[in-house]
């Protein structure tokens, strides 16, 4: 009789993974082996070539490529977990971003005016009017169509914007620095709900609010921050996650914490009327912190971007037409695919037929492991899709299967204080077919109507597959060409 323990093949006993037919597992178990049965499906949605490339990109200390990818990802994760975003100041985009005349930024991957969706077009017209480059919406449209307004993605200028994400030179933006890496990121100030530029509205009330941002809110916050010193957004977000926020669609706790933190310096530096107006605005806008959260995530992710051969996703963004991602190891390339309408709950009187396809840079929060990835912290969110609190925990666990680390700074009480799943590995997404989950607001397809619902979107797998193909091509192992730029 042969003896376990001296076996030349399996000294620790047979511990098998069963990939394929379930019927093969029981005889192993009956004979003392340990078996994990896979719920297997073809990786990369059945694209054989891509599935093979994926296998060649697996971590492997004995293979030059596997070694490079593993090291690159370890480094990316290290930088993500080390990130320490601090809110430094609020400054006009002209100053903070160096935006020039007739330059406008928008959400998502690059897109030409002709292809833009209603809300983004509306917001661009609004910004053109706001800057005084045109007197009427018609003139504004003609000006943009003439090509004399430069349009580019926020992401290309160290910035992010929710929904339409439009930033023009006069608008005040928050200045966030990830002090562990020196990366800076910016975002506009959140306007609240109702008729707002980010949903494409540009009537007098919208432009008036923006002017108040320029004249009052921006300078007041700037003064308070300069007097009170930088604000640690990592610890603020960490606290908010323990108070029922997830940092994307629910920001009431973080907004309150922010107001509490800024109030003393504000009343010291601003006149009484201004301080009252600013605090009143913060009180009435549950989402104020969203833009800070986005800038914080962007500053952290940019530190992990551009690491050769890394498969860590560093941006997910939508422009209402395309969904796009960037991956650390594929440089400035965007991998895009048409974007769908989120699955969600609609405000009375609206239906999916009214919805704009998914929009905004706010998926940067999920990219950094909060938002949909931290759903366990905010079970209320799953009601948008008819789910239960248990589903919320499950969403977070599921995202843990496509990420490389847990962020100890963002502990989740319902999951025993383990951290949020951080560092989306495009390989895991393509291999498992588990798409990143994104909590999102739903915009009306017509400019200016505003938010008509909220829900949950899944990032399209095709973007991640293309990114893997792009990386493989750049490493010289692809056997067919993959679009990537």
């Amino acid at each position, binding site marked *: *009789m*042969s*003896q*376990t323990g*001296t*076996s*030349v*093949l*399996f000294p*620790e*006993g*047979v*511990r*098998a*993974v*069963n*990939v*394929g*037919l379930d*019927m*093969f*597992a029981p*005889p*192993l178990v009956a*004979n*003392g*082996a*340990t078996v*994990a*049965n*896979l*719920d*297997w*499906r*073809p*990786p990369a949605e059945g694209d*054989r070539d891509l*599935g*093979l490339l*994926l*296998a*060649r990109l*697996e*971590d*492997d200390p*004995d*293979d030059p490529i*596997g070694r490079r990818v593993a090291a690159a990802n370890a480094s990316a994760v290290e930088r993500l977990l080390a990130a320490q975003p601090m809110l430094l100041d609020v400054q006009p985009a002209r100053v903070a971003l160096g935006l020039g005349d007739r330059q406008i930024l928008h959400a998502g991957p690059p897109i030409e005016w002709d292809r833009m969706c209603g809300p983004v077009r509306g917001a661009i017209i609004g910004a053109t009017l706001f800057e005084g480059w045109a007197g009427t919406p018609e003139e504004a449209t003609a000006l943009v169509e003439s090509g004399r307004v430069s349009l580019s993605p926020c992401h290309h200028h160290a910035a992010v914007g929710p929904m339409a994400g439009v930033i023009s030179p006069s608008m005040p933006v928050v200045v966030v620095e990830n002090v562990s890496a020196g990366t800076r990121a910016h975002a506009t100030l959140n306007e609240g709900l109702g008729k707002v530029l980010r949903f494409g509205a540009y009537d007098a009330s919208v432009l008036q609010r923006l002017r108040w941002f320029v004249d009052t809110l921006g300078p007041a916050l700037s003064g308070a921050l300069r007097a009170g010193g930088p604000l640690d957004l990592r610890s603020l977000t960490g606290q908010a996650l323990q108070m029922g926020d997830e940092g994307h669609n629910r920001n009431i706790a973080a907004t309150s914490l922010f107001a509490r933190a800024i109030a003393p310096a504000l009343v010291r530096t601003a006149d009484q009327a201004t301080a009252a107006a600013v605090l009143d605005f913060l009180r009435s806008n549950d989402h104020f912190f969203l833009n800070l959260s986005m800038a914080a995530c962007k500053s952290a992710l940019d530190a992990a971007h551009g690491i050769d051969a890394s498969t860590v996703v560093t941006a997910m963004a939508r422009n209402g037409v395309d969904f796009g991602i960037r991956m650390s190891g594929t440089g400035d390339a965007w991998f895009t695919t048409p974007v769908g309408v989120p699955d969600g709950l609609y405000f009375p009187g609206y239906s999916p037929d009214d919805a704009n396809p998914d929009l905004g840079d706010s998926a940067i929060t999920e990219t950094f492991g909060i938002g949909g990835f931290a759903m366990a912290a905010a079970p209320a969110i799953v009601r948008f899709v008819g*789910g239960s609190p248990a*589903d919320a925990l*499950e*969403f977070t*666990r*599921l995202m843990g*299967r496509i990420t490389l680390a847990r962020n100890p700074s963002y502990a989740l009480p319902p999951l025993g204080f383990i951290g949020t799943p951080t560092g989306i590995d495009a390989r*895991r997404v393509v*291999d*498992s*077919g*588990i798409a990143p989950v994104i909590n999102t607001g739903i915009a009306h397809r017509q400019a200016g109507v505003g938010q008509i619902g909220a829900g949950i979107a899944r990032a399209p797998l095709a973007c991640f597959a293309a990114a893997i193909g792009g990386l493989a091509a750049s490493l010289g192992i692809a056997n067919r060409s993959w679009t990537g730029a």
Partner: protein
Amino acid sequence: MTTVHARVFRNSYRDSVELMQIAAELEAIAGVDRAGLVMATPANLEVLAAAGLLSEAVVGAGPNDLVVALSASDEDVVAQALDRAAARLAGSGSEGPNEAVGTTVRTIAEATVELGTANLALISTPGTYATAEALKALKRGLHVFLFSDNVPIEDEIELKALARARGLLVMGPDCGTAIVDGVPLGFANAVRRGSIGLIGASGTGLQQVSCLIDRFGAGVSQAIGVGGRDLDERVGGVMMLAALERLAADPATDLIVLISKPPAAAVAERVLAAAGTIAKPVIVNFLGGDPAVVTAAGSIPAATFEAAAAIASAMALGRPVPVDDSLGADEGPGADEGPGADTPEAPDAAAPHASDDAADAGRHGAGSFAVRQAKAALDPGQWRICGLYSGGSLAGEAKLVLRASLGADAAKRHEVVDLGDDEYTVGRPHPMIDPRLRNEHLAAAASDPSTAVILLDVVIGYGSNPDPAGALADAIDAARAEAARQGRRFAVVASVCGTSGDPQGLAAQEARLAQAGVILAPSNARAARLAARIVAPATVAAGVRR
């Protein structure tokens, strides 16, 4: 008091078979009187009304909504049944599986985390995807058992090169069987553990040798399949060589058996050279190959699976090693009474085969009495052996034995088909799993007036059909009845490849076949030889006595 209730599922589209199944399930719940699942068209609502199944819950439902209507003894039962219906309707349907909430692991990467340390991957995905899964497994340091077929040979070469570099085994592709550390993989048998190490590039060959070793009272340390193409010139026998190294170093293995079709000459040379350097005896069964080459290289040739098992068992048990004349010309009636004639004295298992007693003629024993009886039943026009095989290697062995027993020219008149070949299995399950394909061929062979003997293999063990003998026996009964109606009788000769520990039970399977009048042989080689003797002219059979 009967109560009626209904629930509406908006925009739900199921086919009627699914709806019928659900309705039947609901009606099976105690207390449910009637259940109806229909689209809420006006016509269907009228039917529900007529059946007394209409309730106010249906108001407002339209033709694209599904109604589940019930009458039941009380409210609790209604609630239970409606929940069941909802669960069934949620479980499948137009939107595919609900993957949002999935706790089962989907990838090798996740499974290795779950297992802590994993050391083996069994891969049976469609061949298109198998290479990627095998690569992932190897990169994580797992041995691979690759059941999938249709893996391109370039992929096989790459996988095996990688495995070689990592000190891992790739068993396959198209590898049906292995037994590692006593654990059966794929289609394998419950074989006694012992000191004989097997390496096979042939699936049913490996099964047959391991089962016969069990029958002869010896046991197996490891049975490593390497896939049918391993000894192809392009692959170069790389896994057979790797497995040979492993077993050479294995303290639990005292001797080694190599099983394959004849490899390319260069590969044979390399494998035999490696075998020659090992301090343990190596028995080489290259089916149809030249024994002299093996002897010259310092190993022991065996011409059939049975001979390989017999020689290895005798050596392992310290008995005199038999001379391999398994492909010698037939010695005529009476010379081949049982395994004792050319195999080591097999203890327990051999007993039922040795008898030439008339009372036992239906079981093994298959000696002259059974042959005489079978011959006597044949008409002059019945002369053909029709071999219907589920195992490819077993079919190959049968052809070889027929050629040796009847002469090459005479053997050509007979027919041995491998029904597991792609040619027959396109769009149909393998005959080792589903007996229908072979049963169809059996009926056809039986109605051919020239058929004298139907020769069969019955492979049992893990993965095989739960009762192959039962399925065959019924088909044989039917075929005999049909032939009898046409005034003919024919013989059926079979061997069961299996062990007493197999889930189907060797003895039970043999008994079932015996009951159907099948002449049983203890091995496939021997079954083929019996078949040859039934059709051989008496004078010839007597004349070639050596």
